């Protein structure tokens, strides 16, 4: 184990948490991320015994989550494994595919609602040009948010994850927090 101390994308040593009414924002630096891209002509593998999801979808099994990213390409999440070389673990699962470490390419912000789906929907409506009503549990997509490219994952009716480019996490947090604060009344 290295003796260097990591920092989060927001520059802290512990994850930032902020609550606005029904919505809580939590930085999730423990989530590992790696990309999985098929080689030409390769059959679709089943890493960790999982069926890779269709476009626009996210699936989860245990601590592993997978979402579709592009044709023949997925992102694989692993809870609590950000300090490991998770890309190597994934590569061992799919030795024929191209795997690239993405853990620190992005930063995950987990948003939870204490009042069910409505606050999440209202938040989405303020942030991204998607049909928020149709973005139900298990949905995942990439879209623009305040001029940043993000992945959105609806982990549950009351939970939404936003993966943003690590370097602009401050701006992303600002955008999410401002929108959440303005929804405090609902």
């Amino acid at each position, binding site marked *: *184990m*290295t*003796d*260097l*101390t*990591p*920092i*989060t*994308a927001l*520059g802290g040593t512990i994850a930032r948490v902020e609550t606005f009414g029904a919505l809580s924002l939590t930085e999730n*630096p423990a989530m590992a991320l790696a*990309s999985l*891209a*098929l*080689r*030409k*002509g390769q059959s679709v593998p089943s890493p960790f015994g999982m069926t890779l999801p269709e476009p626009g979808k996210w699936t989860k099994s245990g601590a592993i989550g997978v979402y579709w990213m592009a044709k023949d*390409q997925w992102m694989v999440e692993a809870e609590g494994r*950000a300090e490991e*070389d998770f890309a190597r673990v994934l590569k061992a699962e799919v030795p024929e595919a*191209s795997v*690239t*470490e*993405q*853990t*620190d*390419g*992005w930063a995950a912000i987990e948003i939870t609602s204490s009042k069910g789906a409505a606050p999440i929907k209202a938040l989405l*409506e*303020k*942030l*991204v*040009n*998607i*049909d*928020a*009503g*149709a973005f139900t549990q298990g949905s995942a997509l990439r879209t623009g948010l*305040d*001029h*940043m490219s993000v992945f959105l994952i609806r982990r549950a009716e009351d939970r939404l994850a936003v993966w943003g*480019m*690590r*370097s*602009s996490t*401050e*701006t*992303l947090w*600002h*955008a999410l927090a*401002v*929108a959440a*604060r*303005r929804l*405090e009344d609902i």
Partner: protein
Amino acid sequence: MTRLSGGLIDRNSSFSFTFDGKTYTGHQGDTLASALLANGVRLMGRSFKYHRPRGVVAAGSEEPNAMVELRSGARTEPNTRATVAELYDGLVAKSQNRTGSLAFDALGVNDYFAPFFAAGFYYKTFMWPRAFWEKLYEPMIRRAAGLGRLSMQADPDSYDKGFLHCDVLVIGGGAAGLAAALTAARAGAQVILCDEDFRLGGRLLAESHRLDGAPATDWISTLEAEFETLPNLRVMRRTTVFGVYDHGIYGAVERVSDHVVEPGNKVRQTLWRITAKRAVLAAGATERHIPFADNDRPGVMLGGAMRAYANRWAVTPTQSAKDPVAIFTNNDDGHRTALDLMSKNVPILGVIDSRENAPRFGDYDLFSGAMVTGTKGRLGLRDIEITKGGVASWHRCAALGVSGGWNPNVHLASHHRGRPVWDDTLLSFVPGADGPAGLIPAGACVGLGSTAKALADGAKAAGIALAELGIKTPEVALPDAEDMPVSQADFWHVPGKKRAWVDFQNDVTVKDISLAHKENMKPVEHLKRWTTLGMATDQGKTSNVSALAVMAELTGKSIPQTGTTIFRPPYTGVSLSVLGGGDTGVNFRPRRLTPTHTWAKSQGAEFVEVGQWMRAQYFPQAGETDWRESVDRETKAVRVGVGLCDVTTLGKVDVQGADAGEFLNRMYSNMMGTVAVGKVRYGLMLREDGFAYDDGTCARLGEDHYVVTTTTANAGLVYRNMEFARQCLWPELDVQLISTTDAWAQIAVAGPKSRLLLERVVDEFDLSNDAFPFMGCAELTVCKGLRARLFRISFSGELAYEIAVPARYGNALMARLMELGADLGAAPYGTEALGVLRIEKGHAAGAELNGQTTAAMLGLGRMVSAKKDSIGAVMSRREGLARDARRLVGLQPVGSTERLMAGSHLFTQGTAHSMETDQGWVTSACYSPHVGGYIGLGYLENGDTRMDEEIIAANPIEGSEMRLRVVPAHFVDPEGERLRD
């Protein structure tokens, strides 16, 4: 006070407000206009050109006259229509466009000079002398012919944006809109209903018509109660849909807190982008007036507006409720106003109907075949002149309602270049068939203006939308409503010699249109510009069609032949603040921070914006008073010891696949697939047109695994081009790409002691020159087991490395290197020192790769391999590019210690300084601590053959010039021994 009985105001509430400093009271449900009228205030503003006293004309967003500066201080909002400003307790408003008081406006003198302000005034008058334009005419015009004033302070409020998606968007909450929304919502479709008013109902609120025998508000209340229970329906009051954009996207502004004193924690307004599969346009209609002599006095208003004020707000535009009111009309609808006023005990002078044998609808004096031909009253209407059968007579009259017929609001239906079509029966334009796709106009905005027809047509439009979406339409019972046919005369203005206003807001009269006609400004677009008709905040909502009729009469053409101007968004004014979307200052755009940002900040670094990135520019130390001192020190630290620089911002693209090598051969101009595993190669990329556009390195980490680095500026562009090539140009290649720019913190460790320092952090890795030579790369671990990548590459010309670790460790690694390198003179350096180091070494950067340079100009002509094809290779050999003889050279001042300026142009000594004799330019320049003076890089004609020649660098803008010696572009270690050491 002129309050009548009834109305949709809450008389139990009492709102105090001020207008021009005087305090008045009104009620909840009032607009500023209705509350002012209730207080007997008719004079609300001054006209644009002539500063004529003006009062309210309309009762909605079409208002041309009653514009005020709403609120105070930084929140002042000019040009706010009093007719849509919802009254609240504490409202502050001021009249605008006046010099002095509203009642005595010094610039009212303009009215006497009216002949000078005729059509084409601006074009004719202020043409010369030219020098007077900016200094005299423009400020004068801005002062005299203005609308409201800006506060010149920053807007203290917040604005928001949002996105909504629906099956059916219903625009307008009147009879047609409510029927459409009800139908679509009951069908289970996702529905959004927007209305610009604060209360649903539209014209239903302004009329006395009954629905199912009861007041219309009963039906509306029942509907609103049902709406509350429908989760698939979103009702948005105070929301104006202002434009139709591509692909079913509608722009809408919700006025979230315009009706409160201060927004508090809320935003003032929200800009919504609504994506709708279908939309029902139920925008209603706007009444037009009939121009006649002196028709612009306060107290003269649209007949329908007068009815709205009486029915909805229980006021008349008179100063006393006992004063008589008259109606001037060319149609049946005008008579309704008289009837409604009579039912509220307002004394009626009579109805003046232009039609011979005009119908009678009630017990009032009817002036059949008559016209209003003049008015009196200095600051408000006092008398009108009625002419019947050639005989004129004056009558005491405190308010006059003018009804010239109704124009369907075709605006949104005419976006996307939709052209409204003329309806000879309705005598108005209706939406054409070529309007925006998916937008279905209904109700009064297609000319179906009776309540029954509007209700039915709204429901029908919803049914069409639902059917197109494959949703079953439910049976919806609509209330019984009036369905009176309205007949109307083709009568557009009262002929006469005096000024008869067509466009109140822009002071355009019938005479102005006549003058424009004489001056051959006949086409409608010319007419608009020549007279300013239909411009400014109201965009001629109450005037355009009347003006077309006048022009048609003059040209002898029909109104449809005369045509309309183009309709464009926004329907009503939209503030720039809400279009801006909210964030200003640091969050105006995304800001990218490097992994060592926190550390750099703690070291007191000065930062510089590099694209979206914030990079450390230099690190001032105690005692350093000038940035140059810091930069010189940092540069020297690299040359003699070891320097550290965060270079994470350089783009990184992970390239994998069996054909990765071949793919890179085609992307780079030079051969890349042959680089050995564990090695790095410098590469150059060309654009399709053969110019060089990016350079960087490519490291081969495995048999089919490469990492491409790009410049900071082009990281996104190169990645995009690679994706395009992968997906579209060569889909047959087995290549996978993904950006890893943010994933790895990359730190340049540069200087003769860099190896010594790195040896202190690597875990059992042989850094000796033999084991890890120049242009080597490796995956290894550092600081007890942290995975890392090491590249032996140099931008400074010194022995140097770049080390990459997962981004979260960048901050700690930087601190560790500084700590362990203290005895080696380790120092951080920023982008300024980085720039000096690379100029000293003759490395090209953005200033050299400016999109106009060829590989040969960079001295890299041989890097465009002839053994293979690559993007841009063929085009780089075309004559025009291949012939370019400018070459990158080093430049050193001769006999001068003056600062050498980048951008200076190069000339052969003894020649004139002109475009024809131009020999090139200085691309980069800096003070070089290594050389002990200023140095530069530049492109010079045949530069490679002109070493030691003295040339001139001219800076004609500042009138300076300097002698330079042409030298090789390597001021440091030209043999390249240091970096291979």
